[in-house]
């Protein structure tokens, strides 16, 4: 039987019939290396890259304005310290050669019915002309939660992801915590080799 390593079934050692040679042992090492590289992105990592942040309070999304997310996001997980918070916040992709799930949701609850609330994720600029994921929802007179989500996007180390909201509700809306535990949220995660 050949193993993933390419090695034949082992016999007890010491043995004159089989050698514990460098080739076999290095085959084992290569299998570990390949697994770690495929699953985590390198032989020195022990988990995949993951970033998740949420907004614990609320903020104003100004009407008729592409508004890039800024201060106030709580980082729950950031394996690679890649989130840069500021007046304009962004997530910087830490590894090349990988595929990424990207996710941005706003949770809102307000009285308007029949307008729109949108979320977008833009690449390397805050301009919505560089959008790579988007969603829009019609307001309901209650909760409205647009989710910009895209699976398995190939990105490069250094790429910056910005998170942008928009609404045409007169006077704007107030994304924040609704129903006690539903929150505005961003998530970027490595989902495997490109």
């Amino acid at each position: 039987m050949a193993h993933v390593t390419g090695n034949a079934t082992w016999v007890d050692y010491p043995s004159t019939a089989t050698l514990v040679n460098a080739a076999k042992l290095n085959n084992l090492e290569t299998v570990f290396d390949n697994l770690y590289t495929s699953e985590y992105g390198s032989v020195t990592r022990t988990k995949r890259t993951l970033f998740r942040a949420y907004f614990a309070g609320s903020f104003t999304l100004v009407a008729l304005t592409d508004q890039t997310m800024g201060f106030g996001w709580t980082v729950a997980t950031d394996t690679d310290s890649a989130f840069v918070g500021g007046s304009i916040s962004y997530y910087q992709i830490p590894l090349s050669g990988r595929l990424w799930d990207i996710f941005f949701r706003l949770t809102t609850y307000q009285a308007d019915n029949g307008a729109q609330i949108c979320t977008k994720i833009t690449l390397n600029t805050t301009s919505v002309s560089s959008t790579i994921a988007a969603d829009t929802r019609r307001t309901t007179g209650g909760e409205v939660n647009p989710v910009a989500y895209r699976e398995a996007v190939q990105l490069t180390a250094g790429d910056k992801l910005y998170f942008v909201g928009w609404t045409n509700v007169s006077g704007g809306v107030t994304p924040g915590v609704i129903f006690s535990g539903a929150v505005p949220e961003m998530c970027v995660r490595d989902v495997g080799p490109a």
Partner: protein
Amino acid sequence: MTHATGNATWADTPATSSLISAAALEKDEGAIDSLYISEYGSKTRIVRPLFTGMITSQVVAVTADYWISSGVQVIKDTDSGWVVPGGTTPSYYQIPFSGRLWDIYWRACFQQSPAIGGAVAAKICLGGINVNANTIATDSRAATTGESYPLCWRPGLAGLNAGDKLYFNAYSTGTNNMGPCFGWTYPNITIRDAGPA
């Protein structure tokens, strides 16, 4: 070159310059242990926890808040985490162990939705069935009078611990039927381990 194990490149043995030492073999073991713990949660598991279930035949009239109870066909439940108390008592998924991240997903399927101006919604609640106090995931869709699929999910959610219970809610501003739509589009729940916290 250093491998994932931490070992240097091996040389043939027997050799005086390179030993098949216990330390080197333990590093190999350690690399395997780490992979299992990272991927599956422990050295004794061979698959991540996954629950997925669908409502394939039951059609219920949803008025205001409705809690999923019976009627879920379990497709996969690696850890027997789906609990059905019976009757109209809400069913729940019980998180099997701590220290992991979880993707939680629940999509309701409405065969018809309320008149324009209304809405349908879906929620996942943690530890109780009070939507105002226990909701951790929610979605809402404006009414179309036709089909509607509110889908609430959260990726890579931290902070769930062994024994935590997740409940699944559907809501409609009027009385509307929830169940399979267009043949094989089913209300469905998926809870899956998304890796180490």
